Structures are given as C-alpha cells and as structure tokens.
C-alpha cells in the first residue's frame, strides 16, 4: 500500500498569495491618476489619451503585481479579464460618441420649421416635412407589400410540408438576407426601367427596393416566432375537429401575434434608415409628394445625404439640417425598437 502521506505546502500558499479584493479597482484608479499626472506634466489634456494611458498602465500594473504575488496563471487570468473589459469599453465608445454627437449637432436644427416646411422654393433654408412625409409613405407601402408576403411565406415554411419547395425557399431566403442594399435598389430600378423606360423615378420604386430587403427579415423573425408556438396547442385544436387553416388563423396566429408584430416593427426600423436603394430609385426632390405612383419622392435618409452632399449657399445651415434629419431618423428607429420590445413583453402569451 502506498504511503498515505504526501508532504505538500498548505493550501494558502499553494498557488502563491492573494491580492486584496480591492486590487483591480485600486490599480485602475491609480493608473488613471498617474496617467492624468503624466498628461498634465506633458501639457496635453485629452480624454482619449487619458483613457489609453489608463488602460495600458492598469493592464501592465495588474499583471506585474499579480505575477509577483499570485503566480503567472492567476496573473494571466487577471490580465485577460482587464483586456476583455477594456474591449467592451472600446466597443461602447462609438455608440456613446455617436448618440452624443447626433444629439449635439442635430438638436439646434431640430425645430418646428424643420418639421413642417419642405425645401420647395427655398434657397438655403426650409425643412424636412417633405422628407418625413416621404419616409412614411415609402416605408408604409414597403410594409404593405412585405408583411403579407413575408408572414404567409413564414406560415408556409412552418405549418406545411413541401419537400423541395420548402428547401428551395429556405435557401433563397438565406440568399436574400445577404443582398446588399444598393443591389436591391438597382433591381427595382431595372424592373421599372424595363417597363417604363430609363430615367424613371417613382416613390413606389423605392418601396419595391425596400421590400426586397424587408421580406427576408419578416420571414426570418416570423418563422422564429411561429416555431415557438407549442405543438400541443395545434394538436388540441385538431383534436376538436378544427380544420388546419382555421387552426392557423384562430390558434397559431393569435398566440404568435405579439412576436409577429415585434418582428415587423424591427424590420421597419431596419429599413427606414436605408439610403442607398432610394438614391437610385426615388431620387431627390424638394417638394412634398404623397403619391407614390407619380414622380420623385423625398425621404429622410436621402434628405440627410443630399443636404450634406449638395449644401446650399449657407453650408452650415445645410449641415445642421442633415444632422437634424439624422437625429430624427435615430429617434424614430430607437422608438420603434423600444416600442417593439414593450409590445412583446406586454402582449406575449405565455403559451406553456
């Protein structure tokens, strides 16, 4: 029998000592102070530089300190943790900067005049009313096309068998999700150009282009939602003698309703900011146009772009309007996302 004794150091010393609980925070604070001191001494005072210095100093410090006290494995673990947290911070910086700058630069131009007047006949002034109206019309028509087709296709994929058609459809929806937005715009252009001749610009062309982008999004999210509806519900309905189509309409769709609505809202939020496909289809125009089948139509995203690209005599005013349009867009998108999530949580049926 082997000896039952093995002499080893006590647990507390096995992997070396331990840094105090406050070690991480202390190192960061210390590095920040040191970095600030160094910058002040060098005469530059830049937040970005301070952040970089703090990160570099604290990563080095924690590794060295931990290595000396706790050993190399623990030190590496701490260093990696620091780096990962720094990466997260780095990823947040663009988001914060973006939101901050859009609000800062867009707010000045964001006034009543901006929202209610169009740019017709105005040199170096005017507002975005025509763009807002256009956005609503174009997006509305796109949704009117995409939602029925998308949801029906999703129903087909989840509720029916179909062998080859199903496989082909799934494959092609995958392909569609990857279409670059400008290619979708070119397609809509090509479609209408063949029937109506080149050089045509119509609101509904933009809607067609956006539909190409929107349909796969609606299908994918609706599919997910429909799949979650438990089979027990369908079986209970069939057991009562309900035909299939009625089951879908009366049982499956209502159960999935909140999720479907959410999916549609998120799809709308995704395409409402699309510029490229509209550049090549709906064109740029200064006046309000509510008829998608007649003439060019403006849209918020394209408006923002054209104010930037071709500013009026007063450049800054144009840039202000571009930022104001950007602010409007972001506000709408965030609002849609938020409302979509709220709708989902409020109305979802816990079908367990």
């Amino acid at each position: 029998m082997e000896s039952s004794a093995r002499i080893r150091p006590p647990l507390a010393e096995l992997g070396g000592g331990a840094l105090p609980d406050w070690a991480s925070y202390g190192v960061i604070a210390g590095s920040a102070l040191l970095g600030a001191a160094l910058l002040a001494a060098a005469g530059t005072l830049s937040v970005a530089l301070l952040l970089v210095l703090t990160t570099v100093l604290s990563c080095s410090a924690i590794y060295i300190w931990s290595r000396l006290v706790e050993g190399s494995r623990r030190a590496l673990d701490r260093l990696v943790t620091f780096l990962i947290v720094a990466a997260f911070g780095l990823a947040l910086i663009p988001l914060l900067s973006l939101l901050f700058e859009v609000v800062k630069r867009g707010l000045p131009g964001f006034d009543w005049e901006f929202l209610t007047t169009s740019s017709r006949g105005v040199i170096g002034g005017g507002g975005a009313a025509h763009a807002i109206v256009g956005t609503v019309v174009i997006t509305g028509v796109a949704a009117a096309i995409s939602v029925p087709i998308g949801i029906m296709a999703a129903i087909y994929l989840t509720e029916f068998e179909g062998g080859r058609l199903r496989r082909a459809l799934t494959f092609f929806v995958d392909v569609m999700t990857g279409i670059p937005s400008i290619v979708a715009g070119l397609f809509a252009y090509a479609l209408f150009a063949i029937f109506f001749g080149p050089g045509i610009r119509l609101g509904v062309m933009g809607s067609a282009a956006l539909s190409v982008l929107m349909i796969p999004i609606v299908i994918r999210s609706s599919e997910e939602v429909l799949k979650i509806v438990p089979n027990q519900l369908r079986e209970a309905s069939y057991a009562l003698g309900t035909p299939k189509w009625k089951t879908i309409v009366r049982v499956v769709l209502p159960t999935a309703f909140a999720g479907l609505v959410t999916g549609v809202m998120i799809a709308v939020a995704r395409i409402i900011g699309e510029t490229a496909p509209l550049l090549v289809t709906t064109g740029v125009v200064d006046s309000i146009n509510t008829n998608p089948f007649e003439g060019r139509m403006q849209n918020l995203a394209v408006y923002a772009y054209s104010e930037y690209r071709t500013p009026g005599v007063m450049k800054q005013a144009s840039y202000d309007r571009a930022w104001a349009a950007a602010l409007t867009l972001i506000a709408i998108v965030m609002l849609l996302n938020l409302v979509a999530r709220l709708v989902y949580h409020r109305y979802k049926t816990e079908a367990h």
Partner: protein
Amino acid sequence: MLASASGGIRRPGDRIFSGTAVAAALTILALLAGVAVFLVVEAMPAVTADAAQLPEGKSLVDYIAPLAFGTVLAATLAVVVAVPLAVAVALFISHIAPRRLVLALGFLVDLLAAVPSIVYGLWGIFVLGPAAVPVLEWLEAKLGFIPFFEGPASATGRTMLVAGLVLAVMILPIVCAVAREVFSQTPRKLQEGALALGATRWEMMRMTVLPFGRSSIISGAMLGLGRALGETMAVTIILSVSGIVTFNLISQANPSTIAANIALDFPESSGVAVNTLIASGLVLFAITLVTNLIARAIISRQNIE
C-alpha cells in the same frame, strides 16, 4: 410541424389558405429570380459595349477591378478589427459581466446595429475623421515604412483606415450576436470539467468556450464580411476617392468601393454608364452571395457535428 390534420380531405378553407401560402412562397422565388434576371438584362449592354463607350474609356474589367479591390480592402480591414473585438465583447457579456446586467449590455451592443448607415457616414466624416488625424500623423511618423501607413497623412481623416473602422463598428454587433449565442450555449459539463481540473476562468474559456464556438465565430465573421462588402453610405460619405489602387490606408487618395461608386455616379448617369454601374452591382452581388453561402455552409456543418 404537423402533417395535414384533416386526414387528406381538402376542405375549401384549407385549400385557399395553403394555396395562398404557396403563392407567397413562389412570389419570393420569382422575386429573387427576377433580381438576377433583370440585373443581367440591364447589365448586358455594358458587357457587349466597346471600351471607348464606357465611362472613363476603360474596358468593363478595368473599370470594375479597382472598385472590387477597394471593396475587399475596406471589408477586410473591417473584419480584422471587428472580429477580435466582437469575440472579446461576447466573452464579456456571456461569462464575465454580472448576470443582472447581461440583458442591458446585450441591448447596448445591439443598439449599434440599429443606427442607420447614413448616420454612421455623417459621424465618420464629421467626428471620427477629424479626431483620427493626429493618429494618422503618428502612424505616418512612426510606422511609415509599412506600406499601409506610407502617407502622406490626410488632413481631413477621409481615409480608408477611418472608413474601415466605421465599417468595423457597423459589423461588430452582427459578429458579437453570433458569438454571444454560441458562447452561452457551451455545455456546462465541459466548462465544469475544465474548472474541476483546477483551471482559472481564462484557462477554462480557452479550453472549452472558444474551441466550442470556433465555427460559429468564423461564420459570424463571414456574415459580417458580407455586410461590410455591401455597405454603401458610410463609405460613400467618408472616403475621399481618387480611384487609384493602393494599400495606403492613411492618405487622401483612395480606391472607391463598388457600392460607393454606384451611389456617387448613378444619380447623374445615363445611357451605357447606367448599364456599367448595374454590371458592377452584379459583380458585388456575386461576391456577397459567395461569402454568405460559405458562411451558411460552415454553420450547417457545425450543426451536423
């Protein structure tokens, strides 16, 4: 999904309904076929035309090649920057951040995906570009011997580097979402197995979470690549274009991308120039199609294993 519940008897309601559903499905297939067909039809004139008739007097291949180069360069830059960052952020959210914050943090990262590309373009040219100028100058000074940083550094920041960084920010949430999903699905028994051997948290992630998620990370990166290849507005606004083919990332003279080129030239073009642009769009479509197919293939192989 259940088989036909009516036992083979096709009631009128069922027939109408399934007919409509099938019709919707077929519409989509027709739509997609239509995209390909119409694009090819409208691109044909450019393919058959003489070089002299095309914009810039070049042959179609000579016209598109530099644009393709720029497209791939910008997208590759974006992927190289975004993927490691996205993996780190995904590890943070799935394994390091306090549990209560996970939903909020995920929401924050997803917000990046909700911002319209025109806004990214404006931010890139008015905010990031100017802010990057000191960095560009530093790069030229210290690392100018590397072809990427040859310089001269642009004074406005409207460079390939800045455009690539903005693209990276745009695709970060896509790659991160895929990575988060797979990291949080790493089987507990694998992670506990590593910890039970006495691994630190990082060692556990290196032994189990990352290898487990490797295919998904790659396919997520391909999805991000596809997105970056097709991105238009951000590049259109930010990049200062001169059409030359170069690896120099920090100067004023940059190649354009296919998408940006279309966005810039299309509104004022007519005749065969339009056909040329559509032809370039077709090339872009082909590139992104192949990228996405590879990504899906990797995902389905992972699922089979």
